[in-house]
């Protein structure tokens, strides 16, 4: 394109458009207010000029004839598809009236604020919910099974989140003198090049492969990465914890861990009472009446006496303590009782020793010698990095599984070292997305927070982040216990086609409500059930900012499409209407407030485009635990209750969950439900990523749909032959909950006993009005997966491991 009059504007992707978790720098080519082309920004450290198919197709997205362009009000029945165009003014007035009505009669908590995946909306929708007065801000996937479970485990274990280090914090990237190329990257359950994982550019792994990193890939499917791996472990879905525990067994019992790191920085030497029916970390308060309940006890080898670790000060109470990590000790308590105690390390060692390679090979289906080889290769490679994917969240045993995996980088000393797993903080402490528990932009009084749905059932829900529990929300819509739910604000989320398991239940639930508003870019199956639909904007149509994880970036508005408004504009306007004391007059004023820790104004950030935290800043790597950069008191250590990496978790103990990692069989499997398995003899897994689509989005974009035209099921050639299924046949995938219709893709990438059914499907080309709802009931795989099967922590769901049968259509 060489036309004159083209202006090139630099901005950053996040959310609608490519749909992903963003971060790519782009150059938008604009002529007469219209986007003519998009390109990757070669100067941007994140993508270095590259750009994916979804972003490159954005001209077709922006100006798609089906894109919502103005607010709509329902005039027929819900789902009938009769709409009336209204102005923004009318739309805001209508919403204000309806929602204030619900608040007045039933209380603000009766309104649910539901979002999809973590994008440039979480901060703003929660701000709206809190301005309105409701604590019920929720992500709709059962068991919050998207990153939250892993984030929680990292937070309780090491006090901070971490990610695989692909040099993303460093200005010169791979060539930066502070960086080291990982010798081994363990990729656990993710097809990185096909996805844009949370805060990570998938092809960085390919960059590292070219620079010498070798891969261990753990995946039930043979992905492209698996085919290029040094070691590929094809495991049965949902058995990840058994594998991780076996790795820990090998690493501990073969002495492949970093002994010095474990002794100094983890709670390995802490004593655990083992004589009680309930195991518990020994506290100073057990030893003396006035002792601290948060202080822990070690066995000192120099004096052969118990010694106290003062958690708040992150130091021992006496000088020159030389704690032992091993052994069983008898300790006299304040009440005169003698307690039998083990060190955390001994307790961990004993519990992981149960997971032998042979036993775990039987559980996981991976070959025992390959398991051993993988454990040794990871542990002996320095540095080694571990990248994990969503399958660790989308299983009910997510919490012990994530804990076992997080122990791998902790025991090998690969935390916050170059080329290991680097601690991921918001750059310059600017928080645009409320990952942390607590206030966010606005706060609610404690008595309102107590009404947050599900917090009374699950400790982690209460103490980590501020989500309501989606499964309990859905249940409560029907039971109205302990209080009724009357309305739902659904913003850029599509529970009927994507996040909602058992979507018929969601359909029924939405129809039971007095008021439903949907904010989206296209008319979706979910939007069809709304009373009001508002047209949202893509990232090119907004001013915003992105701060997870790095760099701190400005999203600069490039253009406007008709009447579409940004998420933040919509939330901001309504927040002001619901809360007369709303603290900001303009969005820019609010951005300036958010940016305060960086010392920049929004205008200044906009001019810079992106900023990396400087070396030595608490939000820049490496080895911050040694330098006292992680804790507010500047003491070396971690932001956990004890200041140590908690291999034995005091938080899990507090929540009455098992403090050490363990394995739990998936709830629906050949082993757990042998009777169901007789009738439904295939393990069904879902959620494999596509480079053409982000979850339920983009099916209407011609350049993308031609890459992956059909909702498919991947089935192994041997299995297909047994079932008389040929490549391209239409088949039913069915279980006790429901069925969906798929095109068979006969391929050896799946295991013969496993089928992969792609997620997020609806057919925008089919009629919108019920009963069709854009064909969602024909193709949505979630009809085979139940709500309400989260793990004991309240997190996780059986997306990766359920049972089904498959047969050709026409024979039913």
């Amino acid at each position: 394109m060489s036309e004159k009059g083209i202006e090139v504007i630099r901005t950053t992707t996040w959310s609608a458009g490519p749909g992903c978790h963003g971060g790519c720098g782009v150059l938008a080519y604009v002529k007469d207010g219209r986007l003519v082309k998009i390109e990757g920004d070669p100067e941007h450290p994140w993508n270095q000029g590259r750009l994916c198919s979804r972003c490159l197709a954005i001209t077709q997205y922006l100006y798609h004839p089906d894109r919502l362009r103005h607010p709509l009000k329902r005039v027929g029945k819900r789902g009938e598809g009769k709409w009336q165009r209204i102005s923004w003014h009318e739309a805001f007035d209508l919403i204000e009236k309806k929602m204030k009505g619900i608040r007045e009669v039933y209380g603000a908590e009766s309104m649910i604020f539901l979002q999809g995946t973590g994008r440039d909306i979480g901060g703003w929708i929660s701000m709206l919910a809190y301005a309105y007065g409701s604590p019920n801000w929720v992500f709709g996937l059962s068991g919050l099974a998207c990153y939250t479970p892993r984030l929680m485990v990292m937070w309780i274990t090491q006090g901070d989140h971490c990610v695989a280090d692909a040099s993303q914090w460093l200005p010169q990237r791979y060539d930066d003198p502070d960086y080291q190329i990982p010798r081994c990257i363990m990729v656990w359950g993710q097809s990185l090049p096909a996805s844009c994982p949370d805060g990570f550019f998938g092809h960085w792994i390919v960059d590292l492969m070219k620079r010498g990193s070798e891969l261990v890939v753990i995946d039930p499917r043979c992905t492209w990465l698996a085919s290029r791996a040094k070691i590929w472990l094809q495991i049965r879905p949902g058995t990840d914890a058994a594998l991780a525990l076996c790795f820990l067994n090998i690493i501990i019992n073969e002495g492949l861990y970093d002994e010095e790191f474990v002794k100094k920085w983890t709670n390995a030497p802490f004593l655990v009472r083992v004589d009680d029916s309930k195991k518990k970390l020994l506290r100073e308060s057990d030893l003396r009446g006035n002792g601290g309940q948060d202080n822990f006890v070690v066995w000192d080898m120099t004096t052969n006496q118990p010694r106290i670790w003062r958690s708040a000060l992150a130091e021992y109470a006496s000088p020159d303590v030389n704690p032992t990590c091993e052994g069983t000790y008898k300790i006299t308590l304040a009440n005169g009782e003698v307690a039998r105690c083990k060190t955390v390390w001994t307790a961990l060692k004993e519990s992981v020793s149960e997971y032998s390679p042979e036993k775990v090979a039987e559980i996981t289906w991976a070959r025992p010698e390959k398991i051993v080889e993988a454990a040794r290769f990871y542990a002996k490679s320095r540095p080694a990095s571990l990248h994990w994917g969503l399958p660790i969240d989308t299983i009910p045993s997510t919490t012990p599984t994530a804990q076992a995996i997080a122990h791998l980088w902790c025991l090998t000393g690969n935390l916050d070292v170059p080329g290991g797993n680097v601690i991921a903080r918001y750059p310059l402490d600017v928080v645009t997305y409320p990952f942390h528990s607590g206030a966010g932009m606005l706060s609610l009084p404690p008595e309102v927070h107590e009404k947050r749905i599900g917090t009374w059932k699950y400790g982690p829900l209460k103490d980590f982040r501020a989500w309501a529990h989606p499964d309990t929300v859905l249940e409560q819509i029907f039971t109205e216990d302990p209080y009724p739910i009357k309305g739902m604000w659904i913003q850029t989320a599509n529970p009927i086609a994507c996040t909602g398991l058992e979507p018929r239940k969601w359909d029924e639930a939405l129809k039971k409500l007095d008021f439903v508003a949907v904010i989206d870019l296209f008319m979706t199956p979910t939007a069809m059930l709304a009373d009001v639909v508002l047209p949202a904007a893509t990232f090119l149509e907004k001013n915003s900012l992105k701060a997870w994880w790095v760099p701190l970036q400005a999203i600069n508005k490039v253009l406007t499409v008709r009447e579409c408004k940004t998420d933040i504009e919509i939330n901001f306007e309504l927040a002001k209407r619901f809360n007369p004391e709303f603290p900001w007059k303009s969005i820019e004023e609010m951005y300036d407030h958010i940016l305060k820790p960086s010392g920049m104004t929004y205008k200044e950030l906009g001019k810079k485009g992106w900023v990396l935290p400087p070396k030595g800043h608490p939000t820049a790597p490496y080895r911050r635990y040694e330098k006292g950069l992680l804790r507010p008191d500047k003491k070396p250590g971690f932001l956990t209750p004890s200041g140590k990496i908690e291999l034995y978790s005091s938080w899990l103990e507090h929540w009455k969950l098992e403090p050490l990692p363990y394995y739990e069989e998936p709830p629906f499997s050949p082993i757990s439900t042998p009777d169901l398995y007789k009738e439904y003899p295939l393990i069904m897994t879902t959620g494999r990523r596509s480079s053409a689509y982000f979850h339920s989005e983009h099916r209407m974009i011609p350049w993308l749909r031609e890459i992956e035209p059909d909702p498919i099921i991947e089935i192994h050639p041997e299995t297909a032959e047994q079932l008389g299924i040929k490549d391209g046949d239409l088949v039913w995938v069915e279980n006790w909950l429901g069925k969906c219709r798929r095109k068979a893709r006969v391929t050896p990438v799946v295991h013969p006993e496993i089928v992969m059914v792609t997620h997020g499907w609806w057919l925008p080309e089919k009629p919108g009005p019920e009963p069709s709802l854009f064909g969602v009931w024909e193709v949505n795989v979630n009809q085979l997966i139940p709500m309400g099967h989260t793990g004991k922590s309240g997190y996780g769901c059986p997306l990766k491991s359920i049972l089904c049968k498959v047969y050709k259509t026409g024979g039913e």
Partner: protein
Amino acid sequence: MNDYALLVDYEYCTGCHACEVACKQEHRIPAKKPGGIKIIELIEELPGRKLDITYFPLLTRFCLFCAPRVKRGLLPACVKHCMAQCLKFGRAEELAKKTPRKRRAVLWAR
């Protein structure tokens, strides 16, 4: 344009299709019409359940080597956006020297 060539270091092609859409955007080619580049997938079974998955970005007869871009000193749209950076564009002689010997790669010249 005859001096130019495209090096396809396809050992690293992940089959992400960015090249296809980059081409269609650049040359305004609608869906279902052939673009200048197309990913071919080859999956072959190796012993021990391991597979070889190879993606190969094939230049079609419609590829113009992005002549209008190259004349302006820019890289072809597919090369510019290749997520795996497995496409390289330049003078044929120079690229021949850069062609990796130890892995599968192809040098397209015209």
